């Protein structure tokens, strides 16, 4: 068992446990903190995969910005301990678990058959696998994917305006 395997098992276990903790804790704050743990573990996995840029963004954007937003909202709304599941939760719990297991089974089945895909298999077998650098990503992003890249800026702008409108309207009504 080499270092990568050990690290994979470590990060994988942490992220899975974190994920289960997210859906298990009663208090949203704990859930949020568990999610941060998961995100960090995933950043580790990204590093393991040689995707250093993505790992960095994961930490900065997800674990940093987005989760801060979550925590901020939770504290703003001052939500206390909540029951894990409501009326429907109870009714649906069995069905949800069964569906989840089926879903996971299917996912795993796909994952294991992914390498039967000739394109993936051939790429791996030729050994062209080279750790991609931030330089590669940047080149793709500003050449081939320039238009989608610009569109994301529009999405962010729309989100910005949307948030302002949502909040501002509430303010006016209160006045």
């Amino acid at each position, binding site marked *: 068992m080499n270092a990568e395997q050990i690290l994979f098992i470590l990060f994988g276990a942490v992220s899975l446990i974190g994920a289960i903790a997210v859906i298990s804790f009663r208090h949203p704050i704990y859930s949020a903190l568990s999610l941060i743990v998961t995100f960090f573990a995933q950043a580790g996995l990204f590093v393991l995969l040689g995707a250093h840029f993505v790992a960095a*963004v*994961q930490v900065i954007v997800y674990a940093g910005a987005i989760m801060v937003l979550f925590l901020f909202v939770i504290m703003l709304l001052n939500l206390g301990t909540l029951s894990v599941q409501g009326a429907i939760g109870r009714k649906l719990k069995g069905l*949800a678990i069964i569906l989840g297991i089926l879903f996971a089974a299917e996912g*795993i089945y796909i994952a294991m058959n992914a390498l039967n895909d000739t394109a993936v298999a051939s790429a791996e077998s030729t050994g062209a696998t080279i750790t*991609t650098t931030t330089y590669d*990503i940047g080149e*793709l992003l500003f050449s081939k994917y320039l238009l989608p890249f610009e569109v*994301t800026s529009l999405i962010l702008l729309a989100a910005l305006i949307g948030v302002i409108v*949502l909040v501002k309207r509430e303010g006016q009504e209160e006045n």
Partner: protein
Amino acid sequence: MLQATITLQLYKGGIFIDRAIMPTTVKGKGFYMSLEYYLILSALLFTTGVIGVLIRRNAIIIFMCIELMLNAANLAFVAISRSLGEATGQVFVFFVMTVAAAEVAIGLAIIVSVFKHRQTVNVDEVNSLKG
């Protein structure tokens, strides 16, 4: 099935070593985890997120579960990107993160305004669309 796939993979690994051009060798790691372990992990994380969405009633937690699913997808993207030796997968992760950021901003704003109106963030108490 699982056993057979792993065998196949090990065999492939053997070829890599024979050719002595294995990138892991260049980087001095010797061996790396094969793709499907990452994909299985991704599937498990995604399923966790789905179950969370199904059984939790708190809108914020449901949101976190959605983030969880997005991250699981990101993991699959990056793993396949490495496997193909291409950066495209990571570019898509970038896009997913952007959309996720936007979505979280809007979603949380909606939750805040719902909370202002109804003093609750439980999705089973917000059922104005009941037919």
